[in-house]
């Protein structure tokens, strides 16, 4: 724990709103704090409705991009909270708590090539990671899979290996198969997988990484109440540490994640 303030609550004015793919809306908002401090993989916790208690809790969103004193999030149409947030107009305000959670572990020296594996709407935390890797002059590749070509939110990403379930763009099949194909031919030196997407796809990524004995970090989504470690509401079962008498042990996704090395968790 650092002693400087890592995150804070800020009323943030919405500066831009655009729909980048079917059901995906990007909101750009003024928040110098998030813009300055957010590292790749961190998230913000956004109140769907200021002053009203239904919906009640904040909603977590990855920091999608930052520039100057503004930051962006992608909001995927999911339920009542995201419906309200996605409808926020330019000039309105969001109540934002962040940045929260830990960054992707992109600084480790245990890998040479970062393989960013994205499933569907799990793209949000990847652009900042790619940007950082470029800044750090690291090798990386991006694998991006979706059901069909209308679902890609690829505006901030380069060097993408696309795949689609219906074959409408890139490799016809799953993103994991697409990665496997290239790992099979030894395309990357000392790769590490960074993966975000649906749970099933992340499980497959872990199996793939185990098969090739390469490191893999997954970014998890769990329901959160606080986002800052005070409610204990966001556990993921962990495989690490002495099992207690009760035989279970958990990590908190908000403060110990949202991304975990595949060995740390039971998915």
């Amino acid at each position: 724990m650092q002693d400087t303030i890592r995150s804070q609550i800020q009323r943030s004015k919405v500066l831009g709103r655009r729909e980048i793919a079917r059901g995906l809306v990007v909101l750009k908002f003024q928040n110098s704090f998030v813009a300055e401090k957010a590292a790749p993989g961190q998230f913000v916790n956004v109140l769907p409705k200021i002053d009203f208690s239904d919906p009640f809790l904040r909603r977590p969103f990855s920091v999608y991009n930052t520039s100057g004193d503004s930051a962006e999030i992608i909001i995927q149409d999911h339920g009542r909270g995201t419906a309200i947030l996605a409808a926020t107009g330019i000039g309105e305000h969001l109540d934002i708590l962040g940045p929260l959670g830990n960054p992707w572990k992109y600084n480790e020296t245990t890998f040479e090539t970062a393989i960013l594996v994205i499933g569907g709407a799990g793209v949000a935390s990847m652009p900042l990671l790619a940007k950082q890797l470029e800044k750090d002059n690291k090798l990386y590749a991006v694998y991006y899979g979706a059901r069909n070509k209308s679902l890609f939110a690829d505006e901030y990403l380069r060097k993408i290996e696309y795949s689609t379930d219906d074959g409408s763009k890139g490799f016809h099949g799953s993103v994991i198969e697409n990665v496997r194909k290239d790992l099979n031919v030894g395309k990357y030196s000392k790769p590490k997988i960074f993966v975000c997407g649906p749970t099933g796809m992340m499980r497959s990524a872990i199996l793939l990484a185990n098969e090739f004995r390469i490191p893999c970090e997954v970014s998890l989504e769990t329901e959160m109440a606080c986002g800052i470690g005070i409610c204990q509401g966001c556990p993921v079962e962990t495989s690490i540490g002495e099992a207690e008498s009760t035989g279970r042990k958990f990590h908190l996704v908000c403060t110990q994640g949202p991304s975990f090395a595949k060995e740390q968790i039971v998915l």
Partner: protein
Amino acid sequence: MREINMGVSIGGVEFQNPILVASGTYGYGSEAKDYCDISGLGGIVTKSVSWKPRPGNYPRRIVETASGMLNSIGLANVGVHAFVDEKLPYLENFNTKIIANIAASSTEEYCNVLRHIEENASKNLVGYEINVSCPNVKDGGLSFGTNVARVEELTKALRPLTKKLLIIKLTPNVTSVAPFAAACEASGADAISLINTVLGMSVDIHTRMPRISTVTGGLSGPAIKPIALAKVYEARKACTIPIIGIGGITSASDVMEFLIVGASLVQIGTANFINPNIGNQIFSELRNLLIDKGIVNIQDVVATLKVADQMKALGW
């Protein structure tokens, strides 16, 4: 402008203001300190601590409901040893009162935990809140809190172990809270706090599974404020010891409601999740409210509910 006295004294302990944060909704202070000037709070009630560390319940532990949430954390905590070794010393850094909340599955465990904290107490630890009202563990919790005799026995067992505040935290999940309040007073408690969460449930209609792993969980947040107020009111008529009001507080006006029905102090719970600095915000809102109303002493608000004569005559 006249000085506003926000201080409240209960059982000889002077709280700088009536706004505390509730057990389980503020961790051990270290997590929230980035967002909140902890020293501005009247006090902190720490997460329930048990003898051994508890991992807590399997996920899913929380679910949003209309104007509230259900939780079944299952008393996840570091255990009393880590609590006194790591958490209490850290909390000494703040100019606020600390109340250690204790959960256990037997009278003996309650006593052991309290004794261990007592022996290692930090200087700003002013008392204990005894959680007999957690709905989310199979052992202990509600099996104590829904049985007047057990609450009485437990209070009597704990009372000799400390000169600090002994506060019993009661559950709303009883037909009547009055006998519990009376029993706490009779067996030596300095105060009671209420309410803990209300038993509730939510179902995922697609999987047909409960949304909370333990099937039922505890409901908290604005949804339960009316229930909490009714329970505090009932308890106020049943005992004379101070009451700490808890349940759905999100504003200074909510605090006033609890004080008026009879609470001397309040605790803010779930609202900390939305805004970890809400305690301080409510404090200054509350101070302004008193100024507006020309009230110089917060204690003058306590238990000042006025019922119309007409309604009193009808027995209300």
